[in-house]
């Protein structure tokens, strides 16, 4: 199992903030909108440096999505920022009609996704956002795994013409991907080649998949670990190639089992290559208040859960 090193833990939302600031400096068409959560989204540096390109919307997310759609007319590239819940479920119909169906070049940037939001509890812990966004035709759905990757993704999506959902989170997590990476939308990243089981992880679960890979290696299990930072379009080819080799799969994500990466993989396999699958995710329940670690543990999203799922799925081959 390959070693992955990090010197620092950093929050993915700060990766977004850093990427947005850089975009402000390099692309004058980039504008940013925020619904009264500038600090939480780490958009303050952009606001400070480019006040005329920053739009404070107040607590009115539906309006924000419409504004962003309108701002594309005349060539702006709007980045909207609010919590993932208010970026999706609160404004689904607005995104659907004014952005996705209208083919508008809006980047929906969503923080505090998933359980790791922590103490605020279930009303804020959206676990259905990926499911919603990936159902939308024309939408690209990205969930990077650490600070560096989130920064790279933020910069990359400005170059991509069309609506994008970019999901990131609140807590500091190991920052292990290269600072100078080029982010390729839709291209899965092979982290560790293996032969016994394929682990497909996204977002905060990528690091846990790496940890699980080490634990599995100790048990003599050679896991192939792939970072699926883009959930839509899914890198079918990379997944099918890996599964063709390992003959079993574990998916891992900070999302409901329904509608997430796991379902996309289940569909891909069922339609092409029926294969034993185990899914790590939240099993049809709301989250609750607690620390990120406590919650990931309680809801079955820990490293050990991935290890157990890998062993289970191998035994089903």
């Amino acid at each position, binding site marked *: 199992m390959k070693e992955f090193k990090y010197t620092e833990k950093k929050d993915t939302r700060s990766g977004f903030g850093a990427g947005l600031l850089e975009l402000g400096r390099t692309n004058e068409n980039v504008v940013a909108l925020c619904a009264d959560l500038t600090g939480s989204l780490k958009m303050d540096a952009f606001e400070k440096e480019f006040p005329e390109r920053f739009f404070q919307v107040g607590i*009115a997310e539906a309006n924000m999505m419409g*504004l962003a759609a*309108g701002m594309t007319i005349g060539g702006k590239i709007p980045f909207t920022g609010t919590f993932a819940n208010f970026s999706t479920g609160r404004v689904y119909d607005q995104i659907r009609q*004014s952005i996705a169906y209208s083919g508008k070049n809006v980047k929906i940037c969503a923080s505090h996704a998933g359980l790791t939001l922590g103490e605020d509890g279930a009303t804020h812990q959206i676990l259905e956002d990926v499911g919603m966004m990936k159902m939308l035709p024309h939408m690209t759905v990205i969930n990077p795994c650490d600070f560096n990757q989130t920064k790279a993704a933020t910069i990359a999506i400005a170059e991509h013409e069309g609506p994008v959902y970019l999901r990131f989170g609140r807590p500091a997590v190991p920052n292990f991907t290269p600072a100078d990476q080029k982010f390729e939308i839709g291209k899965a990243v092979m982290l560790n080649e293996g032969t016994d089981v394929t682990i497909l992880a996204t977002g905060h679960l990528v690091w846990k998949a790496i940890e699980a890979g080490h634990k599995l290696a100790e048990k003599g299990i050679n896991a192939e670990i792939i970072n699926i930072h883009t959930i839509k379009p899914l890198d079918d080819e990379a997944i099918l190639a890996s599964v063709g080799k390992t003959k079993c799969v574990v998916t891992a994500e900070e999302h409901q089992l329904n509608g997430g990466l796991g379902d996309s993989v289940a569909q891909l396999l069922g339609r092409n290559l029926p294969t034993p699958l185990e899914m790590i995710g939240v099993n049809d329940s709301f989250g609750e208040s607690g620390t990120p670690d406590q919650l990931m543990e309680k809801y079955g999203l820990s490293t050990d859960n991935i290890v157990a799922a890998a062993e289970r799925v191998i035994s089903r081959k």
Partner: protein
Amino acid sequence: MVKLLPQINNLTIHNSAIKELTINNLTILNNVNPHNKSIEELKEIAAQVRRDIVRMVHAVNSGHPGGSLGCTDYFVSLYFRVMNYKPSPFNMDGEGEDLFFLSNGHISPVWYSVLARAGFFEVKELATFRKINSRLQGHPATEEGLEGIRVASGSLGQGLSVAVGAAQTKKLNKDNNLVYVLMGDGELGEGQVWEAAMYAAHNKVDNLIATVDRNYQQIDGGTEEVLSLGDLRAKFEAFGWHVLEADGNNFELLLPALEDAKRATGNGKPVMILMDTEMGFGVDFMMGSHKWHGVAPNDEQLEIALQQLAVQQASDY
């Protein structure tokens, strides 16, 4: 006989300061409308458009004649006299042009007819309305690139936000032209409209002229029975708008009101026209109730309607 088909002159669009001209005893601001018709001509065009509307909805036995007929004079005024735009080649970004957005997308028939008659696409395409593989969707859509449409609508309540966003982009781009948007009165039940209203006032979006089709009707009955809007002037004034009233079915009154609205722009407040119209205007049996909101005439009713609208039929599609 007056020729009704559009005459597109190769106009140079002036993006400079507002100019004043006097035509037909009306002061016209920033007069670079490509048609710039007289009131008599506008009336004939309106009759033509109304015939198009009833024919279109009759042909597919679906669609929304009521609001379309009521708003015909408004659309004809904008596209044949008031707005500065270039129908061809259509430019999505609309720089150097006034922009129009239709929030109450169900009245697409009037917009399609006016766009065709104003030279955005061929009149014969009206015959494809609501049919499969058409660019003339039941509700306005951009997917197939129909000239003149800049955002999809149909799900109510979203258009004002989009228009405000587009208006802010015009300001960023130092483009002096104006943004117009039409909403239904029943549509004002949607909270997003009030979000956008609050935002536009706070941000002094004063290059925007919004209009409410105040026909006092919606699907289930009169607006004051379904969900009373009461004193709309008081509401919008309390929300920080400059409010004007207009008679939407009388060019002699409507044109000066539209010019007043233009004059009211640039003064730090968004401008709202409460436009009284009669649903179904021009076809007697369609007037005076909500019944024709979304019902198509049968063959016999079509004939009666056409007779009532028969100013002349030379260029009917």
